[in-house]
């Protein structure tokens, strides 16, 4: 069973005047453990598609099924709850809470889920060490580099073992080296944890690390390639 499935998905802006098909009839599935990259020119609908799949936005038409549940029909509060339990998010910026330390940020989702303190400590400590932030537990986001901040964000998204992680241009603010590092780290976690990643990028260099590349043009699915 796919983790994510969309059927005839549309997001149309200004439907009454000059319609913009930000997402145009996309039906696609993502299987567990896939490491998929969504690419396409600016304005091709990458962010819109990811937001629809993540339940941050509601489609004009079509369905989104995540972990067997239809999310486009949920109420706002139900969707917040669903996101907390099933989806990990990494954004391009404003990912972290400035007043919390790296550790507290990484533990944030698990704490919202009210997981036992002991479990949180073990999991978050292990993951932060794994991504090379062993010495930075007590640093505030403002004291971390962009790459380090994104790693904390990935750890936060991953720690609670969601069904999949959505990352909209997670490397856009990073230099080449940091971008590669982050991608390698995500790939590693994808293999170690067996967790599904769906991320978008502009960056030709990171595309080759993806196991599957989905290309959008003008909101429509242009190509869908799997590497074996």
């Amino acid at each position, binding site marked *: 069973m796919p983790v994510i499935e969309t059927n005839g998905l549309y997001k149309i802006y200004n439907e009454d005047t000059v319609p913009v098909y930000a997402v145009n009839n996309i039906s696609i599935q993502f299987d567990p453990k896939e490491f998929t990259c969504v690419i396409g020119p600016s304005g091709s609908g990458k*962010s819109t598609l990811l*937001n629809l799949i*993540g339940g*941050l*936005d509601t489609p004009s038409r079509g369905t989104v099924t995540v972990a067997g549940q239809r999310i486009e029909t949920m109420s*706002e*509060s139900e969707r*917040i*709850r669903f*996101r*907390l*339990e099933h*989806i990990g*998010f990494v*954004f*391009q*910026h*404003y*990912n972290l*809470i*400035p*007043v*919390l330390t790296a550790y*507290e940020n990484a533990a*944030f*989702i698990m*704490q*919202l889920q009210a997981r036992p303190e002991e479990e949180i400590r073990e999991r978050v400590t292990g993951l932060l060490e794994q991504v090379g932030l062993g010495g930075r537990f007590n640093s505030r986001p403002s004291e971390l580099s962009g790459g380090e901040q994104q790693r904390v964000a990935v750890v*936060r*998204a991953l720690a609670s073992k969601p069904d999949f992680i959505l990352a909209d241009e997670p490397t856009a603010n990073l230099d080449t080296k940091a971008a590669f590092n982050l991608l390698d780290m995500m790939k590693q976690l994808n293999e170690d944890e067996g967790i599904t990643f769906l991320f978008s990028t502009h960056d030709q260099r990171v595309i080759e690390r993806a196991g599957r590349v989905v290309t959008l043009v003008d909101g429509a699915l242009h190509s869908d390639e799997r590497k074996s």
Partner: protein
Amino acid sequence: MQLVKMAWRNIWRNKVRSLAVMTAVFLGLVAGMYSASLVEGIMQSRFENFIENQISHIQLHHPDFIRDQEVFLTVGGNLDNLQKVREIPGVNKATIRTRVQCMIASASHTGGVELYGIRPNSENETTKFARHLIDGDYLEGESSNGILIGESLAEKLKVGVGSRIVLSYQDKNNDLVSGAFIVRGIFNSGYTRYDEMTAFVFQEYLNDYLGIGEDFHELAILANDINDLENIRAELHQQFPNSVVRTWNEIEPALEVMVTSSGLFSYIFIILIMIGLAFGLLNTMLMAVFERTREIGMLMAVGMSRTKVFILIVLETIFLSLSGAVIGLFSGYLLVAWFAKHGLDLSTFSDVMYELGVDSVIYPYLNTSFPFILAIIVVATALLSAIYPAIKALSLSPIEAIRK
């Protein structure tokens, strides 16, 4: 816990702004507590003065005397009665008086006064009247024709200590009698009108003139405890079956209104301060929310419930107000306590204070529960001021917030 930590740290993100709000809360509460306690202290002083210098806690009269003030409307009794009254449990001081309306005349002026026949010793114990004397002596020694008159009346009559004046009044048979009195002393009670209309003589001397033996018109009692007047009333009824007993609030209903309204005044003052506080908090929290739209959007995007976002904003508002309030309440309490011990000397304005019936040194008074009630009011104000900013925060859309 996570929320508490975030809320606390969030208020320190903009230190200057938060400190400004806290300082305002601090100053508002200190000033509010101090002025409320001052008003309360003035009212207390006024209240006590009025009771202790004028009406006492309890008065007893012939049932018709209060309305008619006729000479023959006396309460029967002799000096043993007064002794028995003093033995009633709870009675601190007691005195009896004869009261009669009369004409007072000197060589240059004639006017009406209310003449009190008093027992100088017990009168002074009960109302400390002797301290009002500004010239001459209090009534002392054997009963005689000495009289005490007010300063303003003395000026009208153009008399001084040692002068002779003539009083005319009706005796118990409604016959007009006149008597000559010698001014022994001149008093100033602080109430010009009262001083102009009142004079004091020996009760024994006056009673002889009136032909009422050892009867009296008025019995005044100072109790040990103001909350224990009903027992005394009951005892008095036993002892003087044909009489009416009134407590201070029945004698002067306005006094009771004053006592209750002074408390009200404090709260009006506090409410005004709280309205100021509410606007300050509202404004600060709105700014804080607008500055953090992206962050709050992100919190909701990753799954923080609306309830938690709401609680976060409310907690921040409460912390912001309470940190100033706790210090403010504490300092205000210390300030009031210091002045309550040492008194606030307003003798520079003693004339005004005198007119107000207040001592020139004021001891601010604060109900011990007041700071706690204030703390609750501050939290309630913070809660109210938090609602609008919190709703604003909830209306943020996650996608708007995370868009670059």
